[in-house]
């Protein structure tokens, strides 16, 4: 190698290290992302996007990283920016679909997924989420207009320390609930959404239909049971033994069935 070529190589390495290209910044950001260093990665992506604002890859990576740190609005904007560059970018559409689903807007989620699948029909992540939403739609169609048998609150005996019992249909409508009035729709939406997504996940894993579940939080655990288009959930203090939790839920389920029968009779 001649002296000129050697100098050129050294200078190039120096410049790359001191003034990395946008592509290099995105590569570094992606490495940081794999290490869970999301904030540092975001800074590099921002820097890269200042240099190449029209990089769909940069915007996409920004979207992933903002989702990773649970910053929904910046993630949404990043995916939308990617779509400005490439209007049918399947990954950006998937990102927007995820945001719509977790924001409780399944119609917008379905629309984004359909658009992604139109151009990339063999896109497993989009396909599986679309199927999940299709099941949700079918449940709503089947239940729409079906009579809801009222359950008298007096017919329910709560376990000591149990709270926020709710019996809901899988379309999110409440059959019975004992909690603050303004919390009822939030609780119903959450419980039924969990059942829908968990059901889809279990089905995809080849494990069959969801029967029971426990959601453990730092302050409380929610026990749930589902059957014949209904979900029953009860919240108990954190630290309650699983056996006691199932037992309390079992008693509530039996009471619910009894109360429903009495109300219908």
């Amino acid at each position, binding site marked *: 190698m001649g002296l000129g070529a050697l100098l050129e190589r050294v200078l190039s390495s120096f410049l790359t290290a001191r003034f990395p290209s946008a592509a290099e910044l995105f590569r570094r950001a992606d490495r940081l992302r794999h290490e869970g260093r999301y904030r540092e990665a975001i800074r590099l992506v921002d820097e890269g996007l200042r240099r190449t604002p029209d990089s769909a890859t940069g915007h996409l990576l920004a979207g992933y990283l903002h989702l990773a740190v649970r910053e929904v609005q910046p993630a949404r904007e990043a995916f939308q920016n*990617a779509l400005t560059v490439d209007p049918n*970018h399947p990954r950006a559409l998937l990102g927007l679909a995820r945001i719509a689903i977790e924001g409780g807007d399944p119609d917008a989620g379905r629309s984004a997924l359909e658009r992604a699948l139109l151009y990339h029909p*063999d896109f*497993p*992540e989009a396909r599986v*989420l679309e199927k999940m939403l299709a099941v949700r739609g079918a449940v709503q169609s089947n239940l729409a207009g079906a009579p809801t048998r009222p359950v008298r609150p007096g017919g329910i005996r709560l376990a000591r320390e149990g709270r926020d019992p709710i019996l809901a249909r899988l379309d999110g409508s409440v059959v019975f609930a004992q909690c603050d009035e303004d919390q009822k729709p939030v609780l119903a939406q959450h419980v039924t959404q969990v059942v829908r997504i968990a059901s889809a996940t279990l089905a995809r894993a080849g494990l069959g*239909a969801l029967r029971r579940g*426990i959601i*453990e939080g730092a302050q409380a655990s929610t026990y749930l049971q589902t059957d014949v288009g209904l979900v029953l959930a009860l919240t108990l203090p954190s630290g309650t033994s699983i056996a006691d939790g199932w037992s309390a839920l079992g008693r509530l389920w039996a009471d619910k069935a009894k109360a429903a029968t009495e109300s219908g009779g």
Partner: protein
Amino acid sequence: MADRRVPSGKAGPEAGEALHLGGPPPPSRAQQVREILGKLGQLAGVRGGLIVTPDGFVITADLPPPISAEELAALGATLGRELELGMDRLARGTFRTAFFSTDGGAIFLGGSPIGFVILLGDAGAEPAAVSPALQEAVARLEGFWKVQ
């Protein structure tokens, strides 16, 4: 087929970015992550599992065939986010773990700032045994991930 992380179509090449946004983590860390998942896989009744970021990217997976890691990650991350958001909306504290069972098996899900650990179990997988181990694994994952 849509690539796992490299944008399809013209966007990537036009920007001059041969970027593999789904490449493996550095070996040492990847090895540690695999070990965590491998250890969980040894619990009674656990058939396999995966670790995913909140946006559904598969960090590592060890699943029995023919289960697709990408599909399970997409659903698992969606479920994990719903659990996180629901706990927050209902003021029930930080989401820790969840367990969902069928007549023939179960899934377990542990949450962390990094993402979600998802395990598949058969009918013999006991939540009383798996959930504490899952919480421990999540704590370990967070611990070494924070080391810069």
